[in-house]
């Protein structure tokens, strides 16, 4: 009987859990992979720090995401609207199938990889990723 109740509860809460903000889990994972003392200030600084790309233009996270992470950004080339990065901004689906930020580990890693390479010309270290999430967490 107890098992049935637990199972029932698990089923009820599974969708809610699936939507949970995964930043704390990501931070502990990055810690396990060698990061330490994640620093929101370092993440914030890096957010707007500009790097010269191969094409000669200056790039930073803010190029597409805006320096104010509570506002929606815009893709530099395509102009596509990019939802605000701050978890405090209520989720609005811009397109069918959109899901809230920080709810899918695979997606977080995919975009860290793509965007670090675009901005810095290399992948980010676990320390940098941790610093970024530490900064974004409370925005």
């Amino acid at each position, binding site marked *: 009987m107890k098992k049935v109740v637990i199972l029932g509860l698990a089923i009820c809460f599974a969708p809610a859990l699936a939507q949970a903000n995964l930043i704390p889990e990501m931070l502990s994972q990055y810690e396990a992979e060698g990061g330490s003392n994640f620093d929101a200030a370092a993440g914030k600084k890096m957010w707007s720090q500009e790097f010269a790309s191969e*094409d000669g233009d200056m790039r930073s996270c803010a190029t597409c995401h805006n320096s104010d992470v509570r506002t929606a950004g815009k*893709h530099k*080339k*395509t*102009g*596509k609207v990019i939802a605000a990065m701050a978890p405090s901004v209520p989720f609005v689906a811009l397109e069918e*199938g959109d899901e809230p930020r920080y709810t899918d580990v*695979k*997606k977080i*890693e*995919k975009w860290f*990889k*793509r*965007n670090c*390479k*675009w901005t810095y010309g290399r992948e980010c270290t676990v320390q940098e990723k941790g610093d970024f999430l530490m900064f974004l967490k409370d925005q």
Partner: protein
Amino acid sequence: MKKVLLFAVVMMFSGQALAEDFFSNLFRFKGVKPMTDKLYKDSCGECHFAYQAGLLPKRSWEKMMLADQLSDHFGEVADLEEEDRIAIRDMLVADAADTSIYKRSMKIDRSIPENATPLRITETPYIKKKHKEMTDKYVKFNPKVKSLINCNTCHREIEKGIFDDDTVLIPNFGYWSEIE
């Protein structure tokens, strides 16, 4: 009596459904094969319209989906997890234009010279020819369109793989069939 009536009503509606099925099947191979796969839409459709596999031949997708190519995807970084890259490549190859029985896919494929491996759909001869009348005022200088790469902006039935002229609605101008 009530039962008979109910039966009749049920028959009537299922008859209609059957007829609709029949007609949609009749035209099933007209456009390009729709793509509904979630992995594909999530992986590619986040940045641009998730172009159907039937818009380019197999050799084009094989080249585009190479890991090196994805790292420089028309100037953007589009890296994927290795397993996703393979899964998506296989999906695209399986329904590519040169293996498709869909009419428009066949036309696209036939228009491409055998020794060419286009990576841009807009550079295939068939697509180019079909958009000859899409001058800058409709596309480039139209802030709601900007480029032919935004297929879905004007092709309103594109999700179903339909590209017919009468489904083209150009923002700021109206239905193409009424502009022509």
